[in-house]
């Protein structure tokens, strides 16, 4: 059964890709054929948000338990979240070009997402600057929690504030404006990308755990060969005869 999973998954990906090209153009877009970017743009911020929530939860678990496995999981979540934030930005720029005619509109949505990218870049910069494993784990967990609320504010609240005026629609899904081909294919793409994300997360966690075990093993072997261990045996003071 396991052998069949990969070919079936590849087949489904192929079918969805073909369907996304079969879907009709949207005349409301300046370039109607580029409306298909919506299939890929829509799932990215939702997955990024879910991963950021997961990352914050795992960071909190690390602070609660001091178990480094939570740090590994939190890092994997944050890395994947960052990838999806970058994809959101990239697909958003294509969307912006297709719909509004410019790659960068200085739209509050675009700007706020750019700030989210900076917030989480700071997280990775902090991790890179700290060598001590335990301190890096605890402080980066604290930083992840501290940046989580500004990030959510920037993604969901800031663009909807009354004085802020955005081109980006905020009610397309809630008011049922996405329907027909576009609703079905977007859901399919969302499901596929979610599955890929789960697989990538598990691979990342597994790789990090193997690396950590290898590191611990190499530290252990150094100690057993006398690298950091104290010498065994007792040293006693002796008296030397005085030379007259």
């Amino acid at each position, binding site marked *: 059964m396991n052998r069949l999973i990969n070919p079936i998954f590849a087949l489904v990906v192929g079918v969805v890709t073909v369907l996304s090209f079969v879907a009709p153009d949207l005349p409301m877009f300046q370039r109607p054929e580029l409306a298909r970017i919506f299939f890929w743009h829509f799932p990215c911020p939702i997955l990024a948000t879910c991963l950021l929530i997961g990352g914050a939860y795992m960071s909190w678990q690390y602070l609660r338990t001091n178990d480094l496995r939570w740090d590994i999981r939190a890092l994997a979540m944050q890395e994947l979240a960052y990838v999806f934030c970058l994809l959101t930005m990239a697909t958003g720029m294509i969307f912006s070009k297709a719909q509004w005619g410019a790659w960068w509109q200085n739209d509050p949505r675009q700007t706020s997402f750019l700030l989210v990218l900076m917030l989480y870049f700071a997280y990775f910069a902090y991790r890179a*600057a*700290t060598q001590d494993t335990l301190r890096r784990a605890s402080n980066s967990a604290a930083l992840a929690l501290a*940046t989580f609320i500004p990030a959510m504010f920037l993604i969901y609240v800031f663009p909807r504030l009354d004085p802020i005026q955005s081109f980006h629609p905020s009610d397309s899904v809630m008011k049922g404006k996405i329907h027909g081909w576009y609703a079905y294919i977007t859901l399919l793409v969302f499901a596929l990308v979610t599955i890929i994300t789960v697989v990538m997360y598990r691979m990342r966690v597994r790789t990090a755990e193997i690396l950590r075990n290898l590191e611990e093993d190499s530290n252990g072997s150094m100690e057993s060969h006398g690298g950091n261990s104290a010498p065994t045996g007792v040293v006693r003071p002796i008296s030397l005869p005085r030379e007259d």
Partner: protein
Amino acid sequence: MSSVKQVLAVTQKEFISEIRSPSGVMTSALFGTVAVVAISLTTADVSIEPTISAGLLWVVLLFAGVIAMPRAFLQEEEQGTGDLLRLIGEPEAIFWGKGLFNGILMLTVGLVIAAMFLVLTGQPVVHPGDFLLGLVGGCASIAGAVTLCSAIAARSANATTLTAAIALPMLLFLVSLGTTGMRSAFGADHSGRGLMVNMALVAYAIGTYAIGSMIFPRVWKR
């Protein structure tokens, strides 16, 4: 010793340290003054629009805060007093004490910079209440966020730069909110949204201190 007394004791210690070597307030005030004078010089023969004025003032406040605030925890590590503080102080009291000191310092620097800015650029304040609320909320937000970030980065390599690097992205959207509020105080926005935005700044400050006091004990003693 009760928690409030501990908080006040830490704040008092910070004030004494600052009076003995006033590098934090001096550096920040000098930066703010030079920045405001530079703005005044470069715009001497033009009148600045209220929106631009508000943005310029907020950028100066942001960088003045990021320059001064990180010292609260960094100087403990530089002077070797961090371990003693870890032994004798409750983490919550240390965070609130240093946060309170940073808040007062930032507010003082903010008031001085704002006053100089208004005098040198000739920018009239139409709604003084909005102006003060925005300034207090903004300064408290900057102080809260930078206090937490400096605690996180205090024992890392390049701690001062790293504190600024991790605090600035957290504060950038405050500049946007603060500019909107200040624009209203300068009379460029008549929609009455200035009060709402300024309240958001105050809420952000409260949130930052609340989250900081929850997270800080878990990183301070490690």
